[in-house]
């Protein structure tokens, strides 16, 4: 019998794509759908999904929870839980369009919620941690319920099927966002579970990922010491938790997060290419965060509350191309998909392995989030643009 995500570990190949407009100008979801459609061969119809940022301006202060339910019973249980912990400002089914290639759909609901102040206080947690814990609890403990999106002013849309069909199914042309990412999946086997499609998200972190990391169990067993439960047994899940741990909980800047996940080689550290201070810091990271080093092939696009980060494994074992046009930065598995979104980019390059591309909203962009998460040096492509040799 085939086992679903979480019961067994399933390797997969993928296509990813994404873009961000630094000025906060919002773009219609159809653009990102087209970008993945041209990489049809990189998916096999067993999973596709999107993350859009800035899509819920009217509810930008509420956590937007997207939930799959296998049954009404599951929904009743989950809503009871939500009611106990949150003030639900709005709830509805997510509007979808019938598509012949999207089948076996679960119940798909959306809630805009605020944590109940009393509960939050009782928990002695900060608000985001509270929300994250609740999400993990629902997913872990309520059978048949799965929260697949939980950030503010952003949302994840995913399903079993080819990604372009998923976009059609969720009517993404009706959403506008300042950043979009997409994932088309090519798992080696799975009955296809909607929750197992990507992006994987926690709060406003979303990850689309192409690769199969060989450090998985080392990473998993380490990160689980900090209260995470890797239920899905997927790389994306564990990478998300690592980023959540380092970026949200330890408050490390994404540049440093990248240096943990895809740390410089010892030969690089000894080469003098970094300043003595950075060399010392990265050595320290390699010591204390050694179990968070991710090896094996991966290319990821991380979405967060005010930006995107693209990162390759340090050997660049997976393809990843980036491009820039005006104030928009594109990242994708293949150049063709970038050309679909923007045929005449100003520049296009292949980032080196382990060197992150971090793009955040400009300070004066219309839709910035809480100042705490604003990146220093925001608004610029953080990494020197260089033309890596491996494409």
């Amino acid at each position, binding site marked *: 019998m085939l086992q679903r995500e979480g019961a067994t*570990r399933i*390797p*997969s*190949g993928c296509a990813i794509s994404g873009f961000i407009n630094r000025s906060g100008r919002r773009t219609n979801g159809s653009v990102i759908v087209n970008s993945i459609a041209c990489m049809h061969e990189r998916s096999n119809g067993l999973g596709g999904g999107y993350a859009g940022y800035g899509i819920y301006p009217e509810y930008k202060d509420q956590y937007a929870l997207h939930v799959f339910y296998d049954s009404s019973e599951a929904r009743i249980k989950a809503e009871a839980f939500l009611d106990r912990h949150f003030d639900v400002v709005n709830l509805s089914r997510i509007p979808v369009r019938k598509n012949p290639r999207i089948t076996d759909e679960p119940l798909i609901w959306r809630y805009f919620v605020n944590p109940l102040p009393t509960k939050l206080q009782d928990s002695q947690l900060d608000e985001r941690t509270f929300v994250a814990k609740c999400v993990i609890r629902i997913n872990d403990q309520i059978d048949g319920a799965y929260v697949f999106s939980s950030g503010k002013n952003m949302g994840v849309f995913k399903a079993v099927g080819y990604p372009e069909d998923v976009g059609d199914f969720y009517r993404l042309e009706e959403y506008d966002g300042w950043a979009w990412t997409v994932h088309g999946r090519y798992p*080696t086997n799975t009955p296809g579970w909607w929750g197992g499609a990507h992006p994987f998200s926690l709060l406003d972190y979303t990850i689309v990922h192409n*690769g*199969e*990391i*060989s*450090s*998985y*169990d*080392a*990473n998993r*067993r*380490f990160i*689980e*010491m*900090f209260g995470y439960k890797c239920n899905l047994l997927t790389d994306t899940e564990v990478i998300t938790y690592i980023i959540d741990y380092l970026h949200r909980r*330890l*408050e*490390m*800047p994404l540049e*440093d997060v990248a240096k943990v996940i895809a*740390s410089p*080689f*010892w*030969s690089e550290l000894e080469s003098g290419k970094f300043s003595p*201070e950075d060399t010392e*810091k990265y050595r*320290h990271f*390699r*010591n*204390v*965060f*050694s*179990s968070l*080093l*991710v*090896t*094996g*092939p991966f290319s990821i696009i991380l979405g967060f509350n005010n930006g995107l980060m693209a990162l390759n494994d*340090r*050997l660049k*074992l997976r393809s990843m191309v980036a491009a820039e046009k005006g104030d928009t930065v594109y990242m994708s598995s293949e150049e063709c998909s970038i050309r679909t979104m923007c045929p005449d980019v100003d520049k296009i390059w292949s980032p080196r392995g382990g060197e992150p591309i971090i793009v955040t909203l400009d300070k004066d962009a219309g839709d910035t989030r809480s100042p705490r998460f604003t990146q*220093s040096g925001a608004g610029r492509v953080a990494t020197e643009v260089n033309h890596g040799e491996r494409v």
Partner: protein
Amino acid sequence: MNPLFEVIRDPDRCIKCRVCERQCANEVHKYDPDLDKMISDPMTCVDCQRCVCLCPTHALKIRPNENQFRENANWSHQTMDEIYKQADSGGVLLSAMGNPKDYPVYWDKILLNASQVTNPPIDPLREPMETKTFLGKKSQKITYDENGKAHYEKTPYLELDVPIMFSAMSFGSISKNAHESLARAATELGTYYNTGEGGLHEDFYKYGKNTICQVASGRFGVFKGYLDAGAAIEIKMGQGAKPGIGGHLPGMKINDEISKTRMIPKGTDAISPAPHHDIYSIEDLRQLVFSLKEATNWEKPVIVKIAAVHNVAAIASGVARSGADIIAIDGFRGGTGAAPTRIRDNVGIPIELALASVDARLRDEGIRNDVSVVVGGSCRSAADVVKAIALGADAVYIATAALLALGCHLCRSCNTGKCNWGIATQRADLVKRLNPEIGYQRLVNLVTAWDHEIKEIMGGMGINSIEALRGNRLMLRGVGLTQKELDILGIQHAGE
């Protein structure tokens, strides 16, 4: 008593060069001028293979004595032999090196993974392959100031270029030349060797950067200068070969140099008590850990070495909370210069199971980051090292393998002091048989070879840094193991 071995000499090959005679400290071989031939008395032969190795015409071989007592599955030849010995002597039987009995070797029941299709193997000849390892507490505290500068807590650590260290063997149990070989090899390899409980010879202070100074229950050779000399301090609570038992170096081995190094009178027996008499509880251990840290200005990591016994996970958890930076666990197959045979052969548990349960326990308690875990007893190959690290070890200790590299043939008669290979002896004419120039190079070769193999195996798994292997139990599968064993090891069965 019957000789244990037969000395077989091929007269067609023997040229009577007498090297066997000159090299046998047990005086097995002799040239008879009247007969004009080499004769041998196998009674004292220990099968150390020195004569076999040096014979220039390969005229010799040593075989088990074919003479047999009447077969009996219950009363084996060896069991009966031991009865006779004890009936003769009235004493406790002594043995050397590790447990030779046929207990399961879990390393050999675990198989490794490799990448195929969905994720590429990495070619170690083409890509960097990293085996550098840090040992010590890993503080996750980090803050950033308004300028974005990171501030983090640095705790004392050991930095290993390969995840392999030479474990404790005291000067006294092994020779000065053996120590020099280990010290120089550790220095060249960028790893560490361990003084054992016999103190540090004054000639070897220069290798302090790569030395772990052990503090054992006898406290031999321990003083401020000694503690300051090394890179780390190891408190030896137990030893895998003889958990719950102390040590005894006979007075005849305490020559001038050992006497000076151990700081005990020449010719007196050096007795390490079974317990540290100032450690009767975990709180006492904590005090010693902190005392040693205080004595060395909180600059050196402290290792606590324990034998793998039944409740090792709980003990390790206690040790982790005692302030130790590194826990070393020694399995029941670990070596020794001398141990009571019954203890060696019947006490302790396999290191594989001990490691798996300690690692799991520390993670469950969320304190795996507070200590590094080093395992020994016995890692025999690069594959064992890879499996240990995948089970959760940070590094391994090797000793028997190191001795083999130095020439030891596991004749298991270290306790006689007549080691023909110049390793477990203090007799000057024997000690000089181990030229550290050769010895250190062979150790370097061994560990370098293992390092290559580790990298090769890692590459096959698609891993190019040892940290991604650590605790990565998905890379392991069991064969022929019960569900209970798989559960303890935390691995799936092959095919799952």
